[in-house]
C-alpha cells in the first residue's frame, strides 16, 4: 500500500487518540478538528468545494451511521459543521468518536483521490500541526 495512504490514516488516528488535546475535549474536539481542516482547505479549494466534499463524505458514511444528518452539499461549511455537532452530541461518546473517525477518513480519502495522497497528507499536517495555528505573518523578503 502507498506509504502516504498509511500516513494519512495515521494522522487521523493520532489526532483522535485518547490523550490528544482534541479527542480529550469530546464533541468540541471532534468539531475542532473539522474547523482547523476547514480553515486550511477553504482558502485553497473554496468554501463550495469544501462543503461539496464534506457532504459527499457524509453521504458515504451514512450507510453505517444512519443517524448522521442527511446533508445538502449546497449548504455552507459552517452550517454543515453545526449539524454535525448536534448529531454527534446526541449519541454515545464512543459511537460519536467512531462515526467522526469514519467521516474524517472518508473525507480525506475523497480529497486524496482528487489531489493525490502526498498533497492531502501535507494539507492535513499543516491544518492540524501546532505551527499552522501560529500563522505565517513573518516577513522574510
Amino acid at each position: 500500500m502507498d506509504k502516504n495512504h498509511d500516513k494519512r490514516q495515521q494522522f487521523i488516528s493520532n489526532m483522535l487518540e485518547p490523550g490528544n488535546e482534541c479527542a480529550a475535549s469530546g464533541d468540541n474536539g471532534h468539531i475542532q478538528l473539522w474547523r482547523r481542516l476547514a480553515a486550511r482547505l477553504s482558502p485553497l479549494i473554496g468554501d463550495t468545494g469544501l462543503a461539496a466534499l464534506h457532504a459527499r463524505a457524509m453521504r458515504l458514511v451514512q450507510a453505517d451511521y444512519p443517524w448522521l444528518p442527511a446533508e445538502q452539499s449546497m449548504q455552507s461549511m459552517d452550517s454543515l459543521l453545526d449539524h454535525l455537532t448536534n448529531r454527534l452530541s446526541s449519541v454515545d461518546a464512543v459511537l460519536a468518536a467512531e462515526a467522526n473517525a469514519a467521516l474524517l477518513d472518508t473525507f480525506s480519502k475523497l480529497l486524496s483521490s482528487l489531489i493525490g495522497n502526498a498533497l492531502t497528507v501535507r494539507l492535513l499536517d499543516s491544518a492540524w500541526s501546532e505551527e499552522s495555528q501560529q500563522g505565517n505573518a513573518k516577513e522574510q523578503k
Partner: protein
Amino acid sequence: MSDKVSLGILKTSVPGLDILLGGGLSEFSFNLIAGAPGSGKTTLAHQIMFSLATPQRRALFFTVLGEPPLKMLRYQQQYSFYELDKVGSAIRYVNLGEDLRSGNFAGVLERIMREVEDFSPSMVFVDSFRSVVQTAKDGNEGIADLQHFIQELGTRMTSWEATTFLIGEYMHAEAEANPIMTVADGLVYLSQHEEENSVVRKIRVIKMRGQAHLAGSHVFRITHDGLRIYPRVLPFIPEETPDGGFVDRSPVRISTGTPQLDEMLNGGLPRGHAMLVVGPSGAGKTIFGTNFLAEGVRQGEKSVAIFFEKTTSRLRNAKLSEMVNAGEVCIVESRLLDLTVEELVDDLIEAVRRTNAKRVLIDSLSEFGLYLAPEFRTDIRGAVFRVLATLAKLGVSVVVTIGLEDRFTDLRFSQADISFLSDAIVAMRYVETEGRLARLISVVKVRGSAHSTDLREFVITERGIEIGERPVEFEGLLSGHPSIRDRTR
C-alpha cells in the same frame, strides 16, 4: 557610473522563455498572460511559479471563477515541475471565488491585500483575471471601477515588491485586454493554430517594458515537463565575433568514406561544410551517407543522423545499426507528423552537444516536408536554411541527401533552390550506355576550393560506392543522347 535604476531580472527557467523575454522577467513587473482556453496559460504560470518560488521568495496563487481549484491541483500535479514540497512553504493557493461573488472590487482588493500581508509573497498570480473583469458592472461606472481596481492592484503589488501575473482568457489580447493592457508592464500571448488537422502552439511577447524582448511568434510544445519554447534564433556560439575574424584559407579536409570522391574533392570535404548529395531513387545516397558516418567512426568521431525516409529503410541498414548500437551514431527521430523546424533544430543541437558529434547525416530532405506541420511546408527553403545554418554554427560537417527524379535533359540539383544553401554539391544520376543503366557521379560545387569536374561512373559493391578512376568515355550524357567520345579530336 550610471545612477539609472537597474531592473532585477528573474530567470524563469521555462525552456526558451527567457530568450523571448530578453533575459528573464523584470522584478516587480505587472504582467498579463493571455490566450484562449486550452492555450497553456495556467501551465505556464505554474511552471514560472514552481521554478522561482522558494521559502524566501514565496508565491501566492489566487484562483477565481475559472478552473475549479481542486481540478487545477489535480491536473497541474501531473507535470514534472510540480514540487509538492513547495506547496505550503513557498507556494500558497487562495480561492477568491466567494469574495468575487459580491462583485465588489474594493472587497476583492482588500482580500488580496490581506493575503499578501499575511504571506509576504514576492510573486502574485491571479487565475483567471478574466472572471474578475467580467464581474464589472455594465456602463461607464463599471468600467471606471475596473480601471481603478487594476491600477490600484498594479500599484499596490509593485509597492509590495511583488512580481504579478494576471492570467486571462483573451482571444485577441491586444484588442480585448484593455484596460489591463495599458497598465501591464508585460504581455505574453499564447495561441493555437490549426491547419489540416495539425495544431501548432505559439507564444508571443507583445510587450515587456524595459527589456529588449524578442518580437514575433515562436512555437512551443507542452510535454510532461510543461512548456518548451523554441525561439526562432540561431544558436549562440560563445567564441563568435561580429567582425570578420580569422579565415582559415586551408581548412582541414575530412574523408567522406568514399576514397575516390575525396580525390575528386581535392582531398576530402572541408571540415564544417554541408554537402548536398543529389540523386534519383536507388542511386546510392543512403549508402554514401552511411559510409560518411562509418568513416567518422574510423576517425574516432561521433555522429548524429536524422532520417526522414520511412523507418524500414533505416532498420534494414545493418551497417548503420551496428554503429548506433555501439553508441557511435545517435539517431534523431520523430514520430510526430506536425514537426516545426525549431523543434527539429533543437533536437539536433541537443544531440550534437550531448555526443560532441563532428558529423551529421540528414537523409533525405525530399521527405522532410512530410514531417512538417502544414504551415512550414510552404517554406522548405527557409526550413533547410535554419537547419543548415544551425549546423554550420555548431561547426559539424554535414551530408544532406536529396532525392530528385531524373529528367535526363534537365540538370537540377534540388527543389526550391536548396542547393544554393549548401557548401558542396555531389550529383548522382543514371544514364543508358551500351544497353545498360549506369550510375554517374560528379562534383558540382565546393565552396572556396578547386575540385574535379569529371563525370565518373560508379558501382555499388559490398564495400560501398566505388568510383572509376577516369571520366566516362561518353559525351552528351546529360543531353540524353550519349555517344562515344572521339579521341582524335
